[in-house]
């Protein structure tokens, strides 16, 4: 059966100076439209590589990837990426950073006023209506990441790809942005793939958690269904037995069955 995003027998081999390095092998994954998937695993397990493959930033050495029925061949705005380090262009204001994306996607079909409106709406969606004309260095790390999310959402992508989006933020800001993302994704019904190493983040946000084995030659170890009802509330879930159980399952996978040797 064809899923909205389909990853088939994907293998990724990097040519290094020491010879071939098999990063990923035998990856099979199907994602439904509107589904939120987390990829979790120890560092070096190739979870970011998998995301980059879906983004089209790198080409798979084996297998095939499809998005909305078309084979993925190179990056494109239909698969918007939220980068870990926000990757805002420091010489453009928040507005211009988002506008660059909006212009690229809708510039041919819409007039200037409507492009501006889209940009504003995207920034307001992430709660940054007040800081639109600031430069990235004038705002906090959390706000920068919001702009990164706004930029990705403004393109109305088929799939939203998030590469450890909150990894560089402090715990409080991270929690706050997770809640925001939860709200936004629910409102827009986005299909999303998020790479993370944060167990709570994965359980809180996802419909399914894809757990990766350790590299080299990493593959999908287990897929955990997160059958918690939405909308989800962080505080209520903290005491919820199902939540605690799911969290425990992920922890068991990561630390009992696929414990990473001390680096």
């Amino acid at each position, binding site marked *: 059966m064809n899923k909205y995003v389909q990853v088939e027998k994907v293998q990724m081999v990097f040519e290094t100076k020491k010879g071939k390095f098999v990063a990923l092998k035998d990856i099979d994954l199907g994602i439904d439209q509107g589904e939120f998937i987390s990829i979790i695993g120890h560092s070096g397990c190739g979870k970011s590589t998998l995301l980059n493959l879906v983004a089209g*930033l790198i080409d798979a050495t084996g297998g095939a990837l499809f998005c909305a029925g078309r084979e993925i061949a190179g*990056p*494109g705005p239909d698969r*918007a*990426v939220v*980068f870990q380090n926000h990757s805002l262009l420091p010489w453009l204001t928040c507005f211009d950073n988002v506008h*660059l994306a909006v212009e690229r996607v809708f510039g041919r079909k819409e007039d200037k006023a409507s492009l501006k409106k889209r940009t504003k709406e995207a920034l307001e969606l992430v709660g940054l209506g007040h800081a639109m004309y600031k430069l990235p260095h004038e705002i906090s790390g959390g706000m920068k990441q919001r702009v990164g999310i706004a930029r990705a959402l403004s393109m109305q992508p088929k799939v939203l790809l998030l590469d450890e989006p909150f990894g560089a933020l402090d715990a409080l800001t991270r929690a706050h942005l997770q809640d925001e993302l939860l709200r936004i994704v629910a409102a827009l019904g986005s299909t999303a793939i998020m790479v993370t190493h944060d167990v709570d983040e994965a359980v809180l946000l996802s419909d399914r958690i894809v757990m990766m084995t350790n590299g080299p030659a990493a593959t999908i170890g287990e897929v955990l269904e997160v059958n918690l009802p939405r909308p989800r509330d962080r505080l209520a879930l903290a005491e919820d037995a199902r939540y605690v159980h799911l969290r425990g399952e992920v922890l068991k996978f990561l630390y009992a069955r696929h414990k990473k040797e001390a680096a």
Partner: protein
Amino acid sequence: MTVVSIKQARLNEDLSSTAEEIVVHKAIHEPVAADKPVGSERKSRVINIKASLEFFVKRILPPIIGLMLFVMLWELIAQRSENLPGPIKTWASAVELFSDPFYDNGPNDKGIGWNILNSLERVGMGFGLAAMIGIPLGFMIGRFAFFSGMASPIISLLRPVSPLAWLPIGLLVFKEAQPAAIWVIFISSIWPMIINTAVGVSKVPQDYMNVARVLNLSEWKIFTKILFPAVLPYMMTGVRLAIGVAWLVIVAAEMLTGGVGIGFWVWDEWNNLNVEHIIIAIFVVGIIGLLLEQALLLMAKRFEY
């Protein structure tokens, strides 16, 4: 004069250190009054004085002492030499020279101002042409590996060549001194701009290029929105180095080509055995080079993010 001023400087230092001691004493004796507004005001004033004294001792004093030592050394050597004029004689000559910088007694006898302006014009033209060609070339080399492969052997081969070696070629091709001098400036100042721009392009963070790829930006948008702003600081470094080289080379080039210009003027004064003027020229070249460098540094600061 110099000995007296050194003594004065020492005196100043002594004064400053005693003043500091006084400040310290005051600070120690005033802890109780600290929370009262009058006391704290006085205290902050004391701190202010202390800070400015510290600034003077750390920042202003060393260069002054350095310059004074330099002048003293110069005077010492001048006293032992028959031909080398001392600082006082040179200063007197400089005052005379700069009292009328723009006189014009025919092609071989013009004021120092004209000579400086002529040199600056040559540097400006040669450097401007080099920037017009070198910077776009640098972008191409940085952006396209094929182009880089094509250009890098030529650059590596020609870059170490002494600028003056290009002068005969210039004279041969242009048959005239003026364009030949500009040609030498051009060829010597183009390399830093090509290389720094190319390095800047290759140093553009991969993250930015990934953004460009995900957004599927056109080559033109990539250039205007990402490459150009990201490379600008590197480019400015190249420009600064280039103008430094150009200003270095102009004196030598003009010595060989003649005409009106600071380099030619030095040679002319050598023929007249007017050593004061040669020393003045050295200072003038140094000061103008410094000013050019500072101006570009100031410009470069505006492009930092």
